[in-house]
């Protein structure tokens, strides 16, 4: 196939045109993609004083960017679990009467070890380690 001058110049022009368009759209598309926030990775947090936390109650704590539910059982045991339901990420709650964890969005139920017992949740809640050091509750990531 003979490449004549017109065809050659047209190809060259189209290529530079495509390059120009890419040079405009690449920054725009990159701009649309939000940067990851530089929040430091959290490995352990303090969650208040042991004696101020009543038995058979719970609270939601921020662990870095993820919410964690801290539960003190009736026999004064601590449980810490990720509070985002594994179904559709609603925040779960502790039911004092049934001693279970409930996600009210779609009635997902977990036991106190985070195992998904009934309802739609596909996976158990992630467990965290809880220690009481000098009367202070410390939650640490496992593993």
């Amino acid at each position, binding site marked *: 196939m003979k490449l004549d001058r017109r065809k050659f110049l047209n190809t060259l022009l189209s290529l530079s045109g495509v390059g*120009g368009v890419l040079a405009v759209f690449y*920054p*725009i598309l*990159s*701009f*649309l*993609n*939000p*940067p990851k926030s*530089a929040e430091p990775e959290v490995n352990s947090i303090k969650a208040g004083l042991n004696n101020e936390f009543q038995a058979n109650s719970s609270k939601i704590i921020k662990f870095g960017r993820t919410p964690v539910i801290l539960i003190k059982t009736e026999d004064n045991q601590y449980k810490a679990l990720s509070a985002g339901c594994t179904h559709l990420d609603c925040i779960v709650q502790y039911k004092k009467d049934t001693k279970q964890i409930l996600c009210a969005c779609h009635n997902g139920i977990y036991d106190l070890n985070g195992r998904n017992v009934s309802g739609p949740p596909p996976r158990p809640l992630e467990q965290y380690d809880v220690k009481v050091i000098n009367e202070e509750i410390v939650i640490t990531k496992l593993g």
Partner: protein
Amino acid sequence: MKKNYGSKLVTWIDDRFDLTPVRNLLLHKKVPEHRHSVWYYMGGVTLFLFLVQLLTGILLLLYYRPGEDSAYESVRFIVTEVKFGWLIRNVHSWSANLLVLFAFIHMFSVFFSKAYEKPRELTWVTGFITLVFTLAFGFSGYLLPWNELAFFATKVGTDIVGVLPVIGEPLRTFLRGGEDVTGATLSRFFGIHVAILPAIFTVFLGLHLLFIKRQGMHEPESFKKLPEEKKKYIPFFPDFALKDLMLWVIVFNILIFLSLYFPWELGNKADALASAPQGIKPEWYFMFMFQSLKLLPAHVIFIEGELLGVLFFGAAGLIWMLVPFIKVKHKPNWKVQPLVLIGILAVAFIVILTILGYIL
């Protein structure tokens, strides 16, 4: 095959909406070609820069958060963290400045070629209104990064409004959203900048473009006098459109060059309790007004100097807008006609006072 689908689609639409006007525009519209035709492209460049503003403005909206505690921080986030955020912000700022510049060039070229004369009076009026709103865009956008310079420039700018009799005080309170420039002003300016102005602006710009499409390009006197066979025209499509496009590409490259090599500073965060830093100045396109007000004495006879200045600019703007309706007798023995003289004086006034503003 591909062509077949394309023409089928066109026929489908044509059957329903009658594309004759579009076809006429593409096939038959002609643009006069003469030694002043370069000025025909200035409006197009202004339109292009407006489109750049629209696109980059929408992009900035994705990350900008108005508010005393977040505006400055979010702009800093845009220019430091977001990929190409610095580029988008610089293009938005530079394009705003070039837009005003080209709008002024466009306006004066129309003025001196007398293109505002019958039947294009309303094209001129809508164009002038669009320019006023462009300046309002500039003024309101300047505050949004919530830095020191913008904070005090807005204080001064809104304070000037307050010198007007009767409506001055309420108008200032309205603009500031209170007695002083605060977070409330920022919220207000943000709303004005991204919602109110775009809505009004679109209407006037739409009318302006519609009028031009309906009436075609203005032919200057020297061109009209030519015998028919000497009048040269080029087709609007593709010749004129391609030339337009080429100029847009050139302006776009200038815009990118300026954004890369002359980035806009963010400066320090605005602090209402800090004293004003040195060198508070408005954007260059307000400089001539700012400088005139500074040069006026505190009192001229019994009127406050500032009030006189504001009234003068208000009246001058109004007259300028109504220029197509003002009949001035042609003076056969004058070398320069009165209106042209006024135009030259206006340009000279703006240029000289702008320069004075930067060197004094």
